[in-house]
């Protein structure tokens, strides 16, 4: 038997709006001015929320917070491509995606203040609470996408995770099982170059992370993650495939411009020239110049948005603080089980007595 090549693979990369402003008109997605303005607005909202959240954390008013500064295009543009019935399965840095999906700002802040209320889910919500264990949530998106495939229904689950997550067994299991089950799932890997302090180069010897899809027999594509137009287009195509039972991994090349969380200091593990380089590729400025050039956005619009944002963030902070002030500690017993087991009920009674409060249900 001779040696032969039994399979060959390529990985496609997509960019539409270059850092220098050049646009590939042929590839520009068909988006209304309203949608484009909406994406820009949500990216700005997310940036402002993150900036204020870091400041609040420094003042001790918030717990550990994971900002997504620099990743707004990867999140907002991908979430904008979703249909109403689709699901978002986030990691813990997805404020921008959550805002796109309608999660109110005060809920995000409440969660960061240590309140489960911030992850409360309404009857029609299709956003899972943030997943802290890295990569574990990719499997949940497979289960959701598989459920819809089984029921011959349209919705797709969009899972977010970072470059570090692609080293986990769960993410590799997710790619593989999504393919095997024909799950209606899109994996959106935000390759932001660092898993806390570990650079992408140490994360995997693979040339791209998109190619990790190939081993699972599913589609993989790389996209310029700071290019909102390209992220939107790549996600839209991926969602179309996923709706037909072909899961897709989209690797969005981006950069986490701030810290991993408010607990670490990126100066210890990053080079300044690298940071400056990525500053120049800021996703918000890039979309802004595109919109200004086309007359979709004016100086007045930007000024008005800035004022509006200050009010929105201030209101959200006040509302979250109000929730924190009203916290009922006995509430932690409420949602452990559908029906409270007797032993737990006794613990609640003891707890309520110890707190000097009324015993629940009496």
């Amino acid at each position, binding site marked *: 038997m001779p040696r032969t090549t039994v399979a060959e693979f390529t990985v496609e990369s997509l960019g539409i709006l270059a850092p220098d402003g050049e646009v590939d008109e042929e590839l520009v997605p068909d988006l209304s001015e309203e949608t484009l303005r909406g994406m820009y607005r949500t990216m700005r909202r997310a940036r402002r929320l993150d900036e204020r959240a870091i400041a609040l954390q420094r003042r001790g008013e918030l717990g550990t917070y994971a900002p997504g500064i620099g990743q707004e295009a990867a999140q907002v543009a991908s979430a904008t491509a979703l249909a109403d019935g689709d*699901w978002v*399965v986030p990691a813990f840095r997805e404020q921008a995606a959550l805002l796109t999906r309608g999660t109110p700002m005060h809920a995000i802040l409440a969660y960061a203040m240590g309140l*489960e*209320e911030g*992850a*409360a*889910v*309404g*009857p029609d*919500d299709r956003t*899972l*609470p943030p*997943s*802290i*264990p890295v990569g*574990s*949530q*990719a*499997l*949940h*998106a*497979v*289960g*959701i*996408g*598989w*459920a*819809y495939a*089984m029921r011959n229904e349209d919705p797709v*689950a969009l899972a977010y995770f970072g470059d570090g997550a692609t080293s986990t*067994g*769960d993410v590799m*299991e*997710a790619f*593989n*099982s999504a393919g*095997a*089950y024909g799950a209606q799932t899109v994996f959106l890997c935000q390759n932001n170059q660092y898993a806390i302090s570990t650079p992408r180069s140490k994360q995997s010897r693979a040339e791209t992370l998109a190619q990790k899809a190939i081993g699972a027999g599913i589609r993989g594509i790389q996209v310029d993650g700071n290019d909102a137009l390209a992220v939107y287009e790549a996600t839209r195509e991926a969602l179309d495939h996923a709706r037909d039972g072909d899961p897709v991994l989209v690797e969005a090349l981006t950069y986490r411009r701030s810290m991993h969380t408010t607990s670490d200091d990126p100066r210890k593990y990053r080079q300044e020239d690298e940071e400056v380089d990525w500053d120049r590729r800021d996703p918000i400025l890039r979309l802004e110049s595109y919109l200004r050039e086309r007359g979709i956005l004016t100086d007045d619009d930007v000024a008005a948005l800035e004022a509006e944002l200050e009010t929105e963030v201030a209101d959200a902070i006040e509302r979250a603080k109000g929730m924190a002030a009203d916290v009922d500690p006995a509430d*932690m017993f*409420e*949602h*452990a*089980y*559908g*029906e409270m*087991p*007797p*032993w*737990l009920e006794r613990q609640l009674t003891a707890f309520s007595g110890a707190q000097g409060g009324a015993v629940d249900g009496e």
Partner: protein
Amino acid sequence: MANELRIVEAVQQALDEELARDDSVVLFGEDVGVTGGVFRATDGLVDAYPERVYDSTLGESGIVGVGIGLAAAGMTPVAEIQFQSFLYQGFAQLVQHAARLRSRSRGGFTCPMTIRTPYGGGIRALEHHSESFEAGFAHVPGLKVVVPSSPTETKGLLTASIRDPDPVVFMEPTRLYRAMREPVPEGDYTLPLGEATVVEAGEDVTVVAWGSMLRTTLSAVDGVDADVEVVNPRTIYPLDTETITESVKKTGRCVVVHEAPMTAGLGAEIVSRLTETAFYHLESPPERVTGYDVPFPMFAREEAYLPSEERVRAGVERALSE
């Protein structure tokens, strides 16, 4: 109508009836489809419900994690883990997500998933196929843990577990799968989770045992010269403390039997609860007859590890001697 069934057949009947009753029930796990499971517990179900019975990909974290997603999207997943020891690979998903989905989403999403898994030694299996980790699962708030010991309990408790709104680890005693037959109620039949049963009434000493150890215990106490009460919790969490307490208040003596290691095993929890609820009724120190604090040995030594009838009898006699 009641057919004589073995435990493994009671599993199959419960699954069959729940698949028929509820379109949201979906069965998946390694080899559960065409082969009908390594113990044949799902035999024939893929033929009857080809759209809802699946041979899953191999990987226990994936099985549990995917089940969580199915549940969030409105399905009722019933997953099989071929052997309990391999649920360790899915333990992170169980602890970090399945058990917390309800509380993290404030009741917005729930995880009505049942994870069926054979457990326990005594079948001369290869390494890593014989552990009994019920105390570990019971230590995770948000999970329920159920261990049947007979065909009837299997049918009733498995049906109740599938209908339960929370994640249930359903541990089937491997060595009892084909050990006995008994008439099992056909059709809709459930046993409530969280309720113990007094298997044998007695006045002198209470023995608490579940799963395969219940059989060992019943044989062992047959030869004891005393009036022994045997209590089977059936559910490890929630644990029916009341029934155990009432029994011990009556007998004044207690022996807990389990095949899991002694340290931090469920016996520790039961004895601890009894010191809270029945301390002044105790006439002798509570006894534990358990596996040893060693890795479960390979099968040449497993009989030496597992509590035998002799060890149970000796434990009962120690409890009676003071």
